[in-house]
């Protein structure tokens, strides 16, 4: 088990950041989802042993954080959300130094820094001062310093923050690759699309409380609806489906029809064919994580 939280509570004088969180998370790529102020960063600090829980226990990679925070930190990598790099130093030096701080011998740290910077796509820029890096390059450097110590688990706090669409895709691809290297990831974000794209497990928290947790695939249940894209002819299709006894409506420029079983699905296809409409897409509509979050957070606790 990657993570085991038992009645975890963290109270500050003015606010309760986490409230009785009990949770078990397996190894893999985990999305920690919540709005700003939901308690994600507090949870990271607790996992790193940088602050003590008010109540409850935390086990990370089988190690009790309260009993041996140093051991936990030697197994973890951490990429904060905010800027945190010494701007007047070269990327290779920074990553190498953080490798040594993770306990690696000097020579091994330098070698790994070179390898990891290559892995994150900064091979050419490693001897340049970080102050001259773009936001995307700084994010990659932050990821590199988190990986240089060969952690079992990497905590990524909003890794795509501030990135343009291309940079975001590249960062998510990198995060997804970590899973293939046997490194577990907990990615804190408020961008549900990022989680849906990369993570195989999701933990949703809101105002310090657990909303829902589970496998991403199991949360994205079929909704019993199909999306039919017939270009500009959606009104014709809605009318045709109504005549055939299938409830349908136009949602976001496409027709969404409620179907019950394969027979009705065939009926939708036949109506499109009978009307002679161009069929661009016919797909089962899945629940988005946004819907899961809104439904679960809005429901009774």
């Amino acid at each position, binding site marked *: 088990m990657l993570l085991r939280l038992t009645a975890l509570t963290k109270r500050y004088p003015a606010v309760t950041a986490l409230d009785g969180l009990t949770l078990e998370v397996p190894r893999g790529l985990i999305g920690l989802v919540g709005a700003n102020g939901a308690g994600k960063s507090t949870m990271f600090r607790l996992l790193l042993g940088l602050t003590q829980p008010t109540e409850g226990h935390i086990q990370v990679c089988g190690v009790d954080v309260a009993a041996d925070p140093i051991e936990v930190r030697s197994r973890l990598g951490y990429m904060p959300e905010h800027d945190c790099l010494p701007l007047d130093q070269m990327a290779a030096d920074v990553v190498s130094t953080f490798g040594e701080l993770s306990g*690696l011998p000097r020579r091994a740290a330098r070698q790994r820094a070179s390898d990891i910077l290559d892995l994150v796509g900064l091979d050419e820029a490693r001897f340049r001062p970080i102050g001259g890096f773009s936001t995307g390059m700084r994010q990659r450097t932050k990821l590199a310093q988190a990986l240089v110590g060969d952690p079992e688990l990497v905590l990524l706090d909003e890794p795509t923050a501030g990135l343009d669409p291309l940079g975001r895709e590249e960062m998510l691809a990198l995060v997804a690759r970590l899973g293939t290297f046997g490194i577990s990831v907990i990615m804190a974000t408020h961008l549900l699309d990022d989680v849906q794209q990369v993570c195989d497990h999701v933990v949703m928290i809101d105002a310090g409380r657990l909303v829902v947790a589970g496998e991403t695939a199991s949360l994205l249940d079929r909704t019993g609806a199909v999306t039919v894209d017939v270009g500009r002819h959606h009104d014709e299709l809605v009318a045709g489906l109504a005549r055939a006894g299938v409830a349908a409506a136009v949602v976001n420029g496409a027709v969404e029809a409620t179907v019950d079983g394969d027979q009705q699905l065939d009926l939708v296809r036949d109506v499109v064919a009978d009307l002679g409409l161009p069929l661009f897409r016919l797909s089962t509509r899945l629940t988005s994580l946004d819907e899961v979050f809104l439904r679960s957070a809005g429901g009774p606790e």
Partner: protein
Amino acid sequence: MSAAAESPGARRGAVYDRSYRPYEGPRGRRAAATAALYRASIRRALGLRRSWRQKVAPFVLLAVVSVPAIVNVGIGYITRERRLPIEIITYRDYVGVSSALLLFVALVAPDVMCPDRRQRVLPLMFSRPLVGTDYVVAKVGSITTILFAFSFLPQVVLFVGNMLVSDSALDYFTGHLDVLWHVPASVALLAVYYAVVGCAVASLTDRRIVAGASVIGLFLVTSIASAVIVDNGPDRGPSPGSPGALVNVLRLPLYLRDLVFLGHVDPASPLGGVDRGGMYAVGLYVAVLGLGLGVLWRRYRWVER
């Protein structure tokens, strides 16, 4: 790693994906992390692996504090035939010259401490197997080491030079055996003191310029205040000293130097003739060190920033 399939007649070639290689070698914990931070801080303080501008100040200062030793040895060499016992500077006085390294402290302590806080590097450091005490040990230790080296090296030059230009190197060596522990001990007292005070002041702000000015200001203000108190105190007859001399935190380690070299406070110093002056100096030295370390411990006790 994947290699292109080989077939007869095919060009030998391969495409390598270096991918990710797990690390399976030895791994240190707190001590290793502290040592790594110590080395990184020394590199930073000396400007190593940084632009040439960062290297100017430390090495110019080393040159400046080495000048008296070189001049002293040079004059000794020139006058060696005349058998004139010329001694421009004593080993004890030279420790006083090293107090010029205060400038170095004002420059380097903020440079080693402040950016970690200003650029928010601390969370990254403390996500490693490292605690606040380790951080303080590494930072103070690095500055202490450099101060010690910069104070001790010129003394080595002076000692070896004097020995070589003397009539008998062996006689000079055996006649100055006490210097071999007086100098390192008093230089160590000076280095630890300046490093702790410099780091403690620098830890209170994340701006280097403010920290540097504060270090200089602390020593300057207490020096002036001490001088005013000593000069305007009651007439003490033949004794020139006053307890008010202890207010001067810049000079404080030099009283301990006198204790090491002479066994008592120099009668000609501002503390000379003060009853139990040496004891007060030691007590205040320890108190200032304790205060400085207390400030550092408090500043880095909570690391969740």
